[in-house]
C-alpha cells in the first residue's frame, strides 16, 4: 500500500476549522442551558402548617436546622422541594437510540480508519 500524504492545510482553513469546533461546543453546551432544558423536575410541595413536625423533622434535625440558621419558614422551601421522577418513555427511547447510534457509528467508522492505519503501518515493514 502506498503511503498516504495528507494535504497541507492553509491558515484560513485552520481558522475556519477552529471556528467550527468553537461554535459546535457552544451550541451543544450552552443552548440547552439557554433554553432551560437542563435540570430535573423539582417542585415545592407546599405545606400550610410550617412547623418542624409538619416538615417531618425530629428534634435532632430541628436543632441542626436552627444551628445552621434556619427556621421552619425558611427551611420549608428546601425540605419540600422534591423530585417527581417520571419516566418519559418517548424521550428515553430517543436518548437510547441516539446513544446506540452514536457508538455504532463511532466503532464502525473508526474500524474503517483503523484498517488504513494498520495497512500502511505493517505494509511498510
Amino acid at each position, binding site marked *: 500500500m502506498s503511503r498516504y500524504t495528507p494535504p497541507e492545510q492553509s491558515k484560513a482553513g485552520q481558522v475556519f476549522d477552529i471556528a467550527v469546533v468553537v461554535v459546535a461546543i*457552544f451550541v451543544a453546551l450552552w443552548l440547552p442551558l439557554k433554553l432551560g432544558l437542563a435540570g430535573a423536575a423539582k417542585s415545592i410541595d407546599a405545606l400550610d402548617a410550617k412547623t418542624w413536625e409538619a416538615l417531618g423533622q425530629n428534634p435532632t434535625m430541628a436543632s*441542626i436546622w436552627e444551628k445552621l440558621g434556619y427556621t421552619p419558614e425558611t427551611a420549608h422551601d428546601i425540605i419540600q422541594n422534591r423530585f417527581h421522577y417520571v419516566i418519559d418513555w418517548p424521550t428515553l427511547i430517543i436518548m437510547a437510540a441516539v446513544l446506540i447510534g452514536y457508538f455504532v457509528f463511532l466503532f464502525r467508522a473508526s*474500524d474503517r480508519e483503523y484498517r488504513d492505519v494498520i495497512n500502511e503501518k505493517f505494509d511498510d515493514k
Partner: protein
Amino acid sequence: MTIALEPAAPAAQGDRVSLLRVLGPAHVWALGVGIVLVGEFTGWNFSADKGGALAALIVCWVVGLLYTSVAMIDSEVTSTVAAAGGQYAQAKHIVGPLMAFNVALFLVFAYTMLEVSDAILLGDTIVAKAGVEGLTHNSFIAATIVVLAWLNYRGVLMTLNVNFVITAVAYISIVILFFSVSPWTQGAVLKLNELVTPGNALPYGWIGVIAAFQFGIWYYLGIEGTTQAAEEVRSPARSLPYGTMAGMITLLIAAAMTWYVCASMMPWEYLGITYYPLWDAGKLTGSPLLENLLFVATLLAAMASANGCINDAARAWFSLGRDRYLPTWFSAVHPRYRTPYRSILFLLPIALAFAFIADLNQAITFSILSGVLQYTFMSINIIMFRKKWPLGSIRRGYTHPFHPIPAIVLFCLCVVTFFAIFLGFGSQLIAMVAFYFLISLWFHFYRYKFVRRGDQFTMPWPKPQGY
C-alpha cells in the same frame, strides 16, 4: 507531573514532544487524587438530594465498584500502551482515529467542566465566608481560572509539586475532622440514627438510588487522569497500577469517612443542597479551628483539582493538534516554557464562559456526561484489546484479573448512570451526544484527510489479530 515539551518543529516534519521519565507511584497517586479529592468537598452530596442519605452511601460503594473496574482496566492498558495522552493513545492503537478524536474530546470536556466546577466552588466558598452583602463570586472565579491558566502557561513542574502538598493537606483535613468527631461513639457529635431513619433513608425509593448515580460519579471522577502520566513515569508497569489502585483505595476511604461524618451531622434535605458539606460539618462541630481548617481545605482541594484539570485538558487538546486531528496550530510549544500554550489559551475563554453561564450542578453534569461516555468506551476497549492482542502475544506491564467481569460490570454501571442522567438531564445528554455525533461526522468525512495514517500506530507490537 513533570512535562517538558520541545519547541514545535514545522508541521510538515511533525511536532514531537519529549517527556521526562521522572515520576514514581507517589506522583501518579497525587495526580489522580489531586484532581478527584474536590469531589469529597462538594458534588457527591447532590446524590443525597437525588435519593436521600442512604442512596448517597449506596452509590458511594457501587460507583466505587465502577471506578475500581476503571482503575483495573486502565492499569492494564496504560501500562502496556505507555504513551502520553492516556485513553486517547489507547483508542488510537486499539480502536482507531475517530474513536481517539472522540476520547480526547471526552477528556477535554470532562476536565474543563470539572475546572469550571472547581472555580465556582472556590468563588462561592469565599463569598460565603466573607458574608458581605452584594459580593458576587464572579471575580473570584475569573481570578482562579486565569491565575491557574497562567501557572500552567509558565510551566507545570512547580505547580504540580505544589498540587501534591495541597492535596495532602486537604486529605489530612478530612482525616482530622473524622477523628475529631469521635466516630466510634454516637450521640455526642454524630447522630446518624436520628438523622437517617427508616422513614427518610430512601425518600424516593429505589428510583432515587438510581437517580443518585448521576452525582455518585463525582466521588471519584478524574481518577483515570493518572494515565496521562504514562510516558513520564520511570516504570509504567509498576507505577501506574500501584499509583492508580492506591489512589482508588485512598478515595474510597475518604468517601466513606465523608459520608459518615456528613450524614451524621446534617439532615439529608440540607446535605443535598449545600455547596460545601465538609465545611458545614466543620462549622457544626462548634470548633473554630475545624471550621477554618475545612474552609481552607475546600479552597485547596478546588485549586488542586482545577490546576490538574487545566494541565490534562490542555495536553489532550495539544495531542489532537499534534496528530493533525485538529489544526496543527494547537500543537505549538512555547519556546521558553515548553508548555502547550496555545491549547491552554484556547481553553481559557471556554472555561470562563461556562463558569459564568452554568451553575455548579450543571457544570458537574457536563463533566460527568463526558466521563461516562469515556468509561463506556473503556469497557469495550479492553475487550477489543484482549481480542486483538491476546495474553502472551505482547508484553503487558500489568494484567488485570477476572477479565471480562470488570468490563461487563463497568458497561452495566455506565448504562445505569446514563439512565440516572436521563432522570435529570436527559435533554442535556441528547444535546451532548448529538454534538459528539456531528463533530464525528465532520472528522470522519472531512478532517481525517489531514491525518497521516501510519503515524497513528507507534507501539512496537505485532499486527493485531483479524487485520
